[in-house]
């Protein structure tokens, strides 16, 4: 049997290839996030100072909603032709599949963030007053918090009849601590008013707990009927 790292890499490459060919997730995510940015900018029309205070919330709400689109797609493509059964009958470790899916989603959402960040800067007249490296770290931790839980709950809701509704119902409540950390941390860095370190530690702890929990439970979820 291949090493788990080899299986993870093969699955990640396969997912990126499938997405590159179909562009199912990235197109839907981009369009959705773009709509949120534009609608919010017309709804609020804030000054530069107000923008810095509300941008943290707006950015993460846009990314959270857009990420759900990608997260639903992640497992949906495994249901076509029951391809997931091909993995389930193999001796490959389930967690290699889970981590590949989570890293794949991390890449999709990170691409979305990179493409959307300039638009946020333009529409909300933003500039970072706090530490930029801290902002990068916070964004990376926040993105992982979204995708690790999202990947897990998307797998859990895979066999439910209304899985596209089920995912946000499961994901959003459990993500509240992480969202508080992301929004407050981002606002702290954009305004430079408060230190963001507490929020970064909170997100790191949240990620550790939920990544471990997901890895422990995923084999049961994968083999559930």
């Amino acid at each position, binding site marked *: 049997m291949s090493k788990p790292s080899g299986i993870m890499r093969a699955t990640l490459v396969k997912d990126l290839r*499938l997405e590159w060919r179909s562009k199912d997730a990235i197109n839907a995510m981009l369009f959705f996030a773009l709509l949120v940015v534009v609608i919010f900018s017309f709804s609020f029309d804030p000054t530069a100072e107000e923008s810095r205070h509300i941008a943290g919330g707006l950015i993460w709400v846009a990314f959270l909603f857009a990420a759900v689109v990608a997260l639903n797609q992640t497992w949906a493509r495994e249901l076509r032709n029951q391809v997931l059964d091909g993995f389930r009958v193999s001796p490959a470790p389930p967690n290699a599949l889970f981590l590949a899916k989570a890293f794949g989603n991390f890449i999709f959402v990170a691409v979305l963030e990179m493409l959307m960040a300039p638009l946020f800067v333009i529409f909300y007249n933003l500039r970072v007053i706090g530490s930029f490296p801290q902002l990068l770290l916070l964004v990376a931790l926040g993105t992982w918090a979204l995708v690790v839980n999202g990947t897990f709950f998307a797998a859990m809701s895979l066999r439910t009849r209304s899985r596209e509704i089920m995912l946000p119902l499961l994901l959003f409540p459990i993500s509240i601590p992480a969202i508080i950390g992301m929004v407050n941390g981002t606002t702290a860095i954009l305004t430079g008013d408060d230190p963001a370190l507490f929020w970064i530690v909170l997100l790191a702890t949240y990620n550790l707990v939920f990544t471990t929990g997901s890895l422990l439970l995923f084999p049961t979820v994968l083999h559930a009927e």
Partner: protein
Amino acid sequence: MAANSSAQIAPIISIAGLIKHFGRFAALRGVAAEFFAGKIYAILGDNGAGKTTLLRSLAGLAQPTRGTIKILGGTPRQVCAELGYMAHPTLLYEEMSGMENLRYFGKLYGITDEKRCEELIRAVKLEPTLTRPVGQYSQGMRQRMSLARALLNNPKVLLLDEPFSNVDMRSGREMVELLTRLRTEGKTIFVVTHQASLLDGTADEFIWMDSGQIVTRTRTLAEGITNE
């Protein structure tokens, strides 16, 4: 039930009191059977007889509600590296070519040798250089590629669910020839099918199922039809 000439040889698969419920529906109702290495077993029966559920249970995809399955001395999950499973759906990614699919699934079994994938594609009478995605294959080509996927890990036990559906007669006969060759290599092959005539004279035993139970096992297809 036909007497088994291999009675002295230890069975490769033993099923005891297998019951499988889906909610209140009993798909399998106390299946008990033994199967031996190097044989082709055709599993026959009407829709809803429990054929696919039995095959999925053997593949480890359906957990028994009660009863046990022993394959090569272990549970299906423990010996999954020795099993090959071809489902009614293809278990293939439609956006990738046949070769790309086999390369990926091969890695799940630790197979990195490209030649193995190429050999299998040729064995099912397809061309490894075919670059178009599986979604653009004909139904028959998909079935054959699905069979190649099931053979990737050189399994000792091969579980095939409707391998001949949507396949023309010639391709069906070619698949039967391939299965016959695999049997001579010592593989145990289970074929769930509604086209039993293709296996007449080839299968070692016909397993007749009805209402979640094995009702009879016959040496020939005609014998089973007479019993019905």
